[in-house]
């Protein structure tokens, strides 16, 4: 029971910290002091105190977008195991619910963007749904590899069973899947080199340009939902890459948090050393991610 509470507290409380760690890492590389580690929390607190401006063209869909985006990310967080601890909710087939919850969030955030009638936001929505079309098969090829290795169809079962011994049996497949999931993570969470979360006004933006018209608590929900999504997908990836177990349940929590912070640092390093790709190359990379994890399953099934 106490572990379930820790799980919920981490899902609710930790995600904005990742944004802070990414920011600090990037500042370190640029030789700046950078914003404080807890900047994202301050931003959220500020946004939830502010009023909102709604465009006269918008309807209930515009207000529903951020809500659905946040709720689906949080529910997906209940399905994913954190480190060596199984998820509070786990059943055979939950991996499909996991993927489809994000799709539901995407449906409503993209619709909310179209609700403003702005060409910029339409552009962002189009890119978001287009890139996700290519990310989804990559994710499912990855799931196939994990399911085949573990013989289980639940996220907890998949990530508990074969690790860390799975690395001995099917290391090649797992490397491919991890690489593919890392690309998917970067694309889905709008990180450099695929998207830049910091600049709003460039025409090459994907996710950020969809939320131009949101303000106040709605914008807060979007920021928070995006950080939860990053956290949840990161937890999935870190369990594959670093399946460390200490034997002590509470130390495992510490290992998990350390792993997530390390992932944030890696993302920060990637963002610092790479330039953003031209938008036309993003589909190419996603197809590559698909093929990587497809090779992974071929290696297992041969």
């Amino acid at each position, binding site marked *: 029971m106490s572990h379930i509470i820790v799980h919920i507290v981490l899902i609710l409380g930790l995600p904005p910290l990742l944004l802070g760690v990414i920011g600090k890492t990037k500042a370190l590389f640029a030789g700046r002091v950078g914003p404080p580690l807890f900047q994202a929390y301050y931003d959220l607190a500020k946004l*939830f*105190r*502010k*009023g*909102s*401006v*709604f*465009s*006269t*063209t*918008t*309807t*209930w*869909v515009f207000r529903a977008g951020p*809500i659905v985006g*946040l*709720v689906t990310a*949080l*529910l997906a967080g209940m399905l994913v195991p954190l480190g060596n601890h199984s998820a509070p909710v786990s059943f*055979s*087939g939950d991996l*499909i*619910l996991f*993927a*489809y*919850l994000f*799709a*539901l969030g*995407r*449906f409503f955030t993209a*619709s909310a963007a*179209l*609700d403003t*009638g*702005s*060409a910029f936001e*339409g*552009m962002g*929505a*189009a890119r978001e*749904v*287009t890139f*996700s*079309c*290519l990310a*989804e*098969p990559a*994710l499912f090829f990855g799931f196939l590899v994990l399911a*085949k290795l573990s*013989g*289980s*169809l639940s996220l907890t079962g998949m990530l508990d069973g074969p690790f860390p011994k799975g690395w001995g049996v099917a290391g090649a497949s797992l490397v491919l899947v991890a690489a593919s999931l890392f690309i998917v993570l970067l694309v889905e969470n709008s990180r450099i080199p695929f998207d830049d979360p910091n600049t709003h006004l460039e025409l090459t933006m994907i996710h950020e340009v969809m939320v131009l*018209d949101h303000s*106040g*608590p*709605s914008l807060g*929900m979007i920021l928070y939902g995006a950080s939860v999504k990053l956290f949840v997908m990161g937890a999935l990836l870190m369990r594959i890459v670093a399946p460390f177990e200490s034997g002590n349940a509470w130390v495992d929590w510490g290992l998990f948090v350390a792993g997530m912070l390390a992932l944030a640092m890696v993302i920060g390093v990637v963002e610092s050393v790479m330039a953003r790709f031209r938008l036309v190359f993003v589909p190419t990379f996603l197809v590559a991610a*698909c093929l990587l994890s*497809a090779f992974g*399953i071929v290696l297992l099934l041969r």
Partner: protein
Amino acid sequence: MSEWLIFLGIGCHAVSGVPGLFRRRDSDAGQKFAVVLGLIGSALGIVGAVGSLWQPPVANSVIKIDAISVIFLLPIFLIPALGGVYGLTYWKQAEHIHNGQKLRLFYGLVTAALAGVTIAANSILFLVAWEIMALSAFFLITTEDEDRMVSEAGWLYLVTTHTATLCLFALFALLRNVTGSFTLVALPDGLGAGLATAIFLLAVIGFGLKAGLMPLHVWLPGAHAMAPSHVSALMSGVLIKIGIYGLVRICSLLPHPPLWWGGLLLVAGTISGVLGVVFAIGQHDLKRLLAYHSVENIGIITMGLGLAMVGRSLHRADCVALGLAGALLHVWNHGLFKSVLFFSAGAVIHATHTCEIDRLGGLAKAMPRTALCFAIGAVAICGLPPLNGFVSELLIYLGLFRSIGIGHETGWAGSAFAPPALALIGALAVACFVKVFGGVFLGVARSEHARHVREADANMTGPMLVLVGCCLLIGLAPLLVAPLFEQGVYAWSPDLATGAVSLVMLAPLRWVSVAGLALIVLIVVAGVLLGLRLRHCGTASSGTWDCGYAAPTARMQYTSSSFAQMLVGCFVWVLRPRVHAPGEQPLFSRATQFRSHVPDIVLDGALRPSFRFGAKITSSFRFLQAGNIHAYLFYIVVFLILLLLWR
């Protein structure tokens, strides 16, 4: 007893359009009578169909009503009756004095014939009902046959449906040869492999043509787009499913299917699913787009059926159960949400008189109930939780994962491509429905048509709300319908002992309910919290910010074609869009325009050119047929002499 209720229901539908023929053309009385008769017939039929589950299955040499029949009968009775109510406003007799009576006569007949096909145990009765259904559908599609586009779509349908009938004649002739009777019974074990394969392939082609399986779908987009919307709902919701019914039936009769049959169905389903949704993304016409989504969903259903066949070859009861139950449940689900979508598309067309997505926009404000129904239908067709599409896709996903040998010894690596393909289909569907929902209902009106609209009346929104309720019910409480689909699995696969499979054990149906409810409750709670927060902090309204641009107009919005442009670019190798873009312009350019459309690859890319080529070749022999009777007599004499010489 209950079979008589079904017969009575069929009878009510069959004659529902007849009394109206004897009324004045400008009076609505005949239409009201037809709708009431249809509702009574459907009530009787549904009671009879559900009641037949509690008695031993009726099976004689003419009629057979088992769980599979019941599964197909229920939407056949539900959707046309609701469509009739919808038609009270959408196709009011007083406003369509020239074709209202014809429409209702064949609307009733097609419903009765569809129900007849599902209860036929005899190939003669099956074919008679099939032909009544096929011909009535032709007259329904050509309701407005004074329009050239409509009659062209109708003729194309007539040609394809008779190609299908031709295959069915061959199929039933082979069956008669093997079993020695016209009754449809399981084929003997010692059947030769060649004969069995011939029967299977004839069934796939014949029934696939009806179901609209790619590349046999050529008639479907035009027919769905040209028919009145409640007829499109009937065709997409139930009529094309009769092809699936036939395929399911014949597959259950064939003993010991080889693995490649299931593989073929899986591949065909995947192609149909992916290409169906990809072509949908390229469309600008609301109803044409929805029609291509029927091709997609038929693909998903066929994937489920293919999985069940693979399961039978591998002797895996779990794959059979998940695949077939998923396919049959998707038959229901697609019938429900596609009817919602066609009904709301019809409401849009009724209000704006256009189905060009790029001329619409901003309708959610004037038509909130229609917009809500469309949104729910769109979420459901994308297979997203907490609605019914998710449940059937979940069953198929689970079966596909299991079929490659996850958690089990025996498996078939060949189906490993299918779960990611299904994920691709789902993600593309999300993209497509964001495009439609955004283009039609959100933003600002793009034309005068869309600016002055009124909400549809209760006759039109009522049926939509009923269907939306059904979608929610199946999505939130799949356990309610699971026993019926288990019965369907037993009826399909005779080698499964009763009690051998349990959907509740195989699929997390309880968790689906829990997750769906949690999703809805959390969204409501978060919405209330946000509302309270906003009331506390205050809200203001203003124009869309648009990056500081001061005078945005409706025409600057992202259109549905620009929304789809990147995806069309990704699939340009199959879509082959025709783009008419303005070339280089002089310094002070004159008014110019940009047009693009995506032609159908099979119809416009392959069939039309090959038929044109064939016509060109054969027309050079036309001189033989000059209309001169002496010449014809001469041919006969020459032919007879040749025959004599040959002997």
